């Protein structure tokens, strides 16, 4: 089953501070596929993302096979270098860290052991990517996420994704805090990477809106730490029409306090 490349999640359980949030989840994302993971607040969507990426706050059991290699024993930076990228919902500011230097540092780390890229070559590369995302070049002079608006942070996450050239990406609520135009630009950026580089995408969202721009091949619904429904785009359409309550029953929105992270 695992001979073809894929991001294969097997019976994944995630807990934080002794409380289990994800309670046994199976999912396979193949290169070039877009999967949407939806669910009410507190269902465990973000927890799943950060745990898979390797955030040390979470304890995991089960397996996550990235092209056949179990990445759960790896540290967070090793998982990134293995080809998994997590776009943060709220990336933290790191004051004083120059964006241009930072981008070159992570680029070199991701592409090691290839020799470090020269500064002029990197500048060309980064400016081309920024142009595609309609980002002003003055970004390069700023400090990492410092004073960035919500939309700027999201754009910057997608820029990093484009530069690191991961195989699989987890997008945690990419749509939150974005206006429609920005959302379209970023969704187009992700779609382009999916087509050009056969990127496998798991997009986490509460609302179906982003899925009008970033057309999913599959839609899954997470509820109380388990996948309760999987299907095509019609699942998202139904959630949009009926809400989670329509899909899951009357207790769907009653999970407040279950600890949706970030």
């Amino acid at each position, binding site marked *: 089953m695992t001979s073809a490349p894929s991001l294969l999640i097997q019976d994944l359980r995630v807990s934080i501070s002794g409380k289990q949030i994800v309670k046994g989840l199976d999912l396979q994302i193949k290169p070039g596929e877009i999967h949407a993971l939806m669910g009410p607040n507190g269902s465990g969507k973000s927890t799943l993302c950060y745990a898979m*990426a390797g955030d040390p706050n979470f304890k995991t059991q089960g397996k996550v096979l990235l092209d056949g290699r179990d990445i759960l024993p790896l540290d967070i930076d090793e998982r990134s270098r293995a080809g998994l990228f997590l776009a943060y919902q709220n990336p933290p500011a*790191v004051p004083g860290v*120059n964006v241009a230097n*930072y981008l070159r540092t992570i680029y070199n780390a991701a592409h090691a052991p290839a020799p470090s890229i020269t500064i002029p070559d990197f500048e060309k590369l980064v400016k081309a990517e920024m142009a595609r995302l309609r980002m002003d070049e003055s970004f390069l002079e700023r400090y990492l996420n410092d004073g960035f608006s919500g939309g700027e942070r999201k754009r910057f996450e997608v820029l990093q994704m484009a530069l690191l050239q991961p195989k699989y990406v987890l997008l945690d609520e990419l749509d939150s805090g974005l206006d429609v135009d920005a959302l379209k630009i970023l969704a187009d950026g992700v779609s382009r990477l999916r087509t050009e580089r056969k990127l496998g995408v798991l997009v986490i969202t509460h609302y179906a809106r982003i899925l009008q721009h970033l057309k999913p091949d599959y839609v899954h619904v997470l509820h109380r730490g388990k996948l309760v429904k999987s299907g095509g785009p019609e699942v998202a359409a139904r959630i949009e029409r009926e809400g989670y309550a329509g899909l899951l029953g009357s207790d769907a929105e009653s999970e407040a306090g279950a600890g949706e992270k970030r």
Partner: protein
Amino acid sequence: MAKSLSPKPAPKTKTKKSGADSDSSSPQLPWGHEAQVQSIVANLENYHETIRNPPKFSFKVDEKGLSEHVVREISSSKGEPDWMLAKRLMSYRIFQTKPIPTWGPDLSGLNLDDITEYVKPEGRKNAKSWNEVPDYIKQTYERLGIPQAERDILGGVAAQYDSEVLYHSIQKNLEEQGVIFMGMDQGVAEYPELVKPYFMTKCVPAGDNKFSALHGAVWSGGSFLYVPKGVKIERPLQIYFIMNYPEYGQFEHTLIIAEENSSVQYIEGCTAPHYDTASLHSAVVEIFAKKNSRVRYTSVQNWSKNVYNLNTKRAIVDAGAIMEWVGGTLGSGTTMLYPCSVLAGEGARADHLTIALAGEGQVKDTGAKVIHLAPNTHSSVISKSISHGGGIARYRGLVKMKKGCHGSSVHVRCDGLILDGLSGSDTVPRMEIEENDVKVGHEATVGRISAEQRTYLRSRGISEEEATRLIIAGFIEPVVKQLPLEYAVEINRLIEMEIEGL
């Protein structure tokens, strides 16, 4: 390494110094332009000679404590004018009466009864061989890639006076503009009429504190910089200390006079650690920023960890003038350093930017003082400290706003970063605000490296060490970006070395 200089053989003979010790104490340059240029050219020749072969002084005393006799010996061995001797003796008397300050870090390890050991050249021993240089210093040289010849000098191993203690890069056109830049001893000898009104008078009088009094009694070495009216010096003037000359570096006196509408940047120091067996440094820096002038004073010190580094640095900033202090204290055991800006004229401005690194066995008691005396004066202080390995970093600051300084503002920001559970950081800010129509801001943070930041950076594929290094470099960036590039690069490398062990 830009830090040090090619050694030159020491001439065996001493140049005869011109005996310009007449006591006509006018603060203005009395000469016409031509005479001025001639004088400066002559003076520079003398200067270049003296830095190759600095005036030595010696005295034979058996007394352990500092005495009037010792002070007289120092003065007469330098051939100083009477007014300087009088100043030394007055300073000595003040030193005797003042108690050692107890409000700051513990100075009980400092034995002032043995002060002669600190003062007299014969009392100070250079390390005679590499075996005597502490390992941590050798390792640092290794890591910084400092060539052996320079290590010998920095480590105090080189036996003879074979290198320049100071290097003043003076461009020809500066000389022609009447800029004076020379050793302080030479300044006293050559320009007494210029030096006397400013030397430890209204800026840092001897009575300011115990150690300024000590300094006034026994000072030696340092720099004298005079920038005439309207002269703007684009390139920074740099001096590099090399602790090979016993006469220099312990009680050096720096006097900078920037006349109206002039501008100058002065940089001193070195990021590589200096090993010195002497255990007390007490420098005084006096800066006069006249009307509408701009002075930037940058210093980076990395004395070895056995050193008590107790300095007094102050600027008097006249109307419309801008004073900038940029500093890094990396070395020494106990440091007390609070550069002070006295904003004396309307519209004067001061910016203080400092970094302190406190590692094992180090106490950094550093900060800034800003004193607003005139209306519409503005100051800002940014202080960054990093403590690790059991080091203690304390920000100690004073903001004083006198009645009548309306329309003025001050903003103080001090951030302490603690890298491990052994180390400490705190802030002791003091504010004395007598005027209502002012803006006063104070922000202080003390914290550890944010796990969230580190996790985020690591999620982009960089190692924990690299993530830590980036966060720390970012933390000090507001100060480091104001430093000359070679200092900035070396400070970052030093920090990398320090955090490797974490």
